[in-house]
């Protein structure tokens, strides 16, 4: 056996003349295909073109996975198309070199195998993956506003058939080894103990490479492609409008036009990605990616070791928080006096676990970890106690008085309150500095953000632990100041209320929601209000109106007192069948007022500016991050403050002034505009 070590790679040739290529990127916990990694790979591969090894096996030296993708940091400084093209072609070249080798080539995969890493694996003749649950394979480029660029668009459709291939690339979703095997993306899913034996076996006795069977083999046919492409475009349009998200449409075009000519397709793929990398959408989505990384870095996992979480209150929020924590591997007691409430929690848990975990054994284990606790016995075992009862100061304070003496030393005590100042609640505690806010959003299983709320007396160490806890349950912590509405509800509320006001003025709800969707919001404000619950909107609005520049529109009170509470009562602004709204069609020829979108968005932006001035969050990037992950604010716009800068501070401010002249003081520009 001979061995040669590069900076990032280790090349090992065994007694059977099989070359094992270990990637262990220097100075990084994760393998990415950065420039230096690819350059070394090019050098390493060159001799193998002439002197044929028995086989080539590419594997990772990192515990966490194979290769996470291209190095996104290298995209950020790109300004010129030529530079972008060069960067992409460098990756394509390395993959092509692997694909051109005459000997059997194998990607031996564990953990994540994503983006450029997946494309490198696709360039190999065979792929073998660990069947462990941590194995995730996918091509998530679309989430960054681009599409695969290292030959993935060329190699994947013929390998697994167009439907599966295009679905993977268009959704950007990651799949596990079992699903990948079923799809044909990998040749074998084997237990860790057999990985190397399987790789050696496939090299020594190479089978015919995988090809799609039956009708799937026809899906790349030039006669079939236009038909499939049309369906794909329609499906994409439901999720991502072409105006905001051009990359998926370009990907479909690329496949439809060039799937018969791999060489040409490779060139077109590079050109297309180069174009998108420099575009606004990709630029802002990459920004969002880094904002997410920043939020992650705010929770240092080592600060807390949560094994047992006790949630008090089994309502929608409390129940869902408990369900989520148990799914993340913690033992959870969920306390509620009502057995019916706890029964509903278990029912919801089962539904979620079935969807996420699939295997009965794992579902049972997760359900076993979620313990209904009608007597509150779990408090004294818990490392983290989360109070999520109804919003009542006295009730919460009384609860804290009972709970505090039972807490384990050092246990984290958190509240999920969305409207009561922490400094008021913590008065009931012998040690008021230990109370911190963990403000989750509904639905907990989908909303990644958790606001970590500190009052002036909250111990900063406790707040750091709370942020660390958020990371343990795979949520994104955003430290915020205990002020009304914190960040997310506060910036949302004026925007929602403006929508309600317009509806009252006579603008059809459908037109208002459409304006917001066109801007890029994930859901229109009227439907969002219905979904949150109009009673909840009203109570938050009332709390905020006491301190902020917010008037509660009479229309909201009117609907609530009529019992129209939104989705949950079957009627709010819209009428609901289940949770599907019956949105009245706009009359043909109806033209909504020209300022609908501006009124909505500028109130949003103005409130964001006010939050920044008051220091609700530490800086503008965190504000953008919180608003994107907490409200779904058009991610391709990079966040509200970023959007103000991109679209011009002066332009937006002038619009605000015009609106103020027309609609009055609620559009007075916050002082912060002068600082933006």
């Amino acid at each position, binding site marked *: 056996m001979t061995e040669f070590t590069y900076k990032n790679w280790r090349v090992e040739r065994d007694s059977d003349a099989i070359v094992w290529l270990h990637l262990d990127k220097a100075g990084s916990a994760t393998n990415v295909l950065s420039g230096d990694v690819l350059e070394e790979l090019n050098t390493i591969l060159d001799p193998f073109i002439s002197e044929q090894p028995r086989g080539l096996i590419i594997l990772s030296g990192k515990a966490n996975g194979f290769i996470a993708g291209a190095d996104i940091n290298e995209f950020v400084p790109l300004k010129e198309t030529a530079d972008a093209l060069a960067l992409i072609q460098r990756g394509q070249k390395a993959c092509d070199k692997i694909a051109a080798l005459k000997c059997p080539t194998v990607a031996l995969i564990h953990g994540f195998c994503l983006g450029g890493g997946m494309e490198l694996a696709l360039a190999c003749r065979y792929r073998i993956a660990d069947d462990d649950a941590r194995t995730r394979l996918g091509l998530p480029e679309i989430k960054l506003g681009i599409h695969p660029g290292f030959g993935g668009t060329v190699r994947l459709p013929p390998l697994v058939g167009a439907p599966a291939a295009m679905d993977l690339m268009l959704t950007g979703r990651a799949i596990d080894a079992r699903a990948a095997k079923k799809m044909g993306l990998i040749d074998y899913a084997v237990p860790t103990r057999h990985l190397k034996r399987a790789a050696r076996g496939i090299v020594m006795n190479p089978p015919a490479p995988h090809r799609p069977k039956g009708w799937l083999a026809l899906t790349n046919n030039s006669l079939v492609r236009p038909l499939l492409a049309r369906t794909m475009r329609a499906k994409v349009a439901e999720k991502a409008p072409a105006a905001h998200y051009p990359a998926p449409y370009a990907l479909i075009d690329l496949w439809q036009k060039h799937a018969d000519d791999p060489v040409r397709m490779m060139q077109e793929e590079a050109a297309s990605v180069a174009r998108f990398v420099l575009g606004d959408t990709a630029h802002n989505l990459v920004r969002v990616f880094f904002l997410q990384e920043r939020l992650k870095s705010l929770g240092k996992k080592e600060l807390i070791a949560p094994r047992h979480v006790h949630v008090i209150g089994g309502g929608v929020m409390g129940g869902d928080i408990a369900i989520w924590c148990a799914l993340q591997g913690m*033992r959870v*007691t969920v306390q509620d006096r009502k*057995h*019916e409430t*706890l*029964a*509903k929690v*278990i*029912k919801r*848990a*089962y539904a979620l676990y079935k969807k996420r975990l699939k295997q009965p054994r794992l579902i*049972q*284990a997760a*359900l*076993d*970890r979620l*313990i*209904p*606790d*009608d*007597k509150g*016995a*779990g408090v*004294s*075992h818990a490392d983290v106690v989360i109070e999520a009862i109804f919003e009542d100061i006295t009730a919460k304070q009384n609860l804290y008085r009972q709970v505090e003496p039972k807490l384990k030393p050092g246990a984290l005590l958190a509240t999920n309150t969305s409207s009561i100042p922490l400094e008021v609640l913590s008065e009931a505690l012998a040690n008021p500095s230990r109370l911190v806010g963990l403000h989750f959003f509904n639905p907990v299983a989908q909303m990644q953000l958790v606001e970590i709320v500190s009052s002036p007396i909250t111990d900063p160490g406790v707040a750091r632990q709370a942020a660390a806890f958020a990371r343990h349950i795979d949520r994104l912590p955003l430290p915020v100041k205990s002020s009304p509405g914190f960040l997310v509800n506060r910036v949302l509320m004026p925007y929602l209320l403006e929508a309600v006001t317009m509806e009252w003025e006579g603008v059809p709800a459908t037109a208002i929601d459409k304006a917001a969707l066109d801007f890029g919001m994930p859901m229109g404000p009227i439907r969002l209000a219905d979904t949150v619950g109009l009673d909840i909107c009203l109570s938050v609005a009332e709390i905020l109106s006491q301190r902020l520049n917010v008037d509660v529109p009479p229309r909201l009170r009117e609907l609530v007192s009529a019992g129209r509470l939104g989705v949950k009562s079957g009627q709010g602004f819209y009428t609901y069948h289940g949770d599907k709204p019956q949105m009245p069609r706009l009359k043909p020829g109806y033209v909504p007022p020209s300022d609908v979108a501006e009124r909505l968005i500028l109130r949003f932006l103005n409130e964001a500016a006010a939050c920044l001035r008051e220091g609700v969050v530490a800086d503008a990037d965190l504000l953008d991050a919180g608003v994107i992950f907490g409200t779904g604010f058009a991610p391709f716009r990079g966040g509200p403050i970023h959007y103000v800068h991109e679209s011009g501070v002066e332009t937006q401010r002038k619009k605000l002034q015009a609106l103020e002249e027309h609609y009055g003081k609620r559009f007075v520009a916050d002082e912060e505009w002068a600082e933006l």
Partner: protein
Amino acid sequence: MANGTENAGKTVYIVDGSRTPQLKAKNKPGPFTAGDLAVAAGRPLLARQPFEPGDFDEVILGCVMPGPDEANIARVTALRLGCGKHVPAWTVQRNCASGMQALDCAAHDIAAGRASLVLAGGVESMSHAPVLLNTDMVGWLGEWSAARNFGAKLAALSKLRPAYFTPIIGLLRGLTDPVVGLSMGQTAENIAHRFNIGREQMDTFALESHRRLAKAQDEGLLNEIETLYDTRGNAYEHDDGLRRDGDLAKLAKLKPVFDRHFGNVTAANSAQITDGAALLILASEEAVDKYQLPVLGRIIDSQWAGLEPAQMGLGPAHAMAPIMRRRGLTIGDIDYWEINEAFAAQVLACLAAWNDDDYCRTELGLQGAMGMIDHARLNVDGSGVSLGHPVGASGARIVLHLLNVLKRTSTRRGMASLCIGGGQGGAMLVESGRE
């Protein structure tokens, strides 16, 4: 032959316990497997302890028919409860007394100093009792899977007979004595006949069992019950076999189920087929001190006895007698009794046997009749007839409930006993409090 297990070693404490509501089988598998039931009884019990699940020295469960995925159901339960891989666990089987057997084994280990903290109890999901293929079918299936080609498959297929599809109902087989060929109900008919216990007497006893359970539920006396939750959004808070609407006239109309035409034992005066679990925590003095555990009571003595399988219902009379003799106790020394109601006739026969001078002398080796146990001190909150008899669990349930009755009434001594299919009896003498 009988074997006594007088605790000569260290004191054995029972510190706490929980059980599930007992759910009547409704002609289909119930919402919970045996493992689910044991876990549901154990989780709230462990959640309120000052120690961690991993602190147990062992876990012992009694179960007659664990599901196919839970052969050693104690180990499955221990792992599902989060006791961790290092806590050993084993399952015991003594038919209807399996739960009491688990307590007895735990008590032995603690008395001998082999263990200090043990989770023990019983579980049964009778509604999930297996339905088996008959031997002919199993044989045929073997042949079928060995047939390698079409011809052989065809040949095998030609040998398949409709009779092969007749299933074996595990529950019915389990409740039939294979040695004497009698169902448990028929053994109850036997001893009812022997002691001249009539239909009305049985029905009256059954009604009283329901009346007592209803009262206990209404007054909240069954606080050892922990609510069960299924995955469809239902909560089960109470033993659901309770009938509040019964009266003698209604009961008199029911047809006998075991001796079809002329028998007296009916579904209403027999124990119900139910699912349930009961778990207790047993501890040594060291463990009680170490974790500052509240003590519910102590296991003082226990006894297993064998008798004619066809008379199995008299098992309690045989198992309790040696304890009474060895401890020098008279009926008046026992504050409360739990004699599990497998059949109303069978409990009544036990009382009659103890009150029968001849039976006590010849069968129990006593000097004369033990006397009459006061019904007011027996099964005070209902028993098998009203709340069911999940066979593996009942032995643990009656010990736990007896201790709770002693605590509630501030009395001292209690006797728990049950009859065991196959012709055995088991009994356990407990005392409340630490001393």
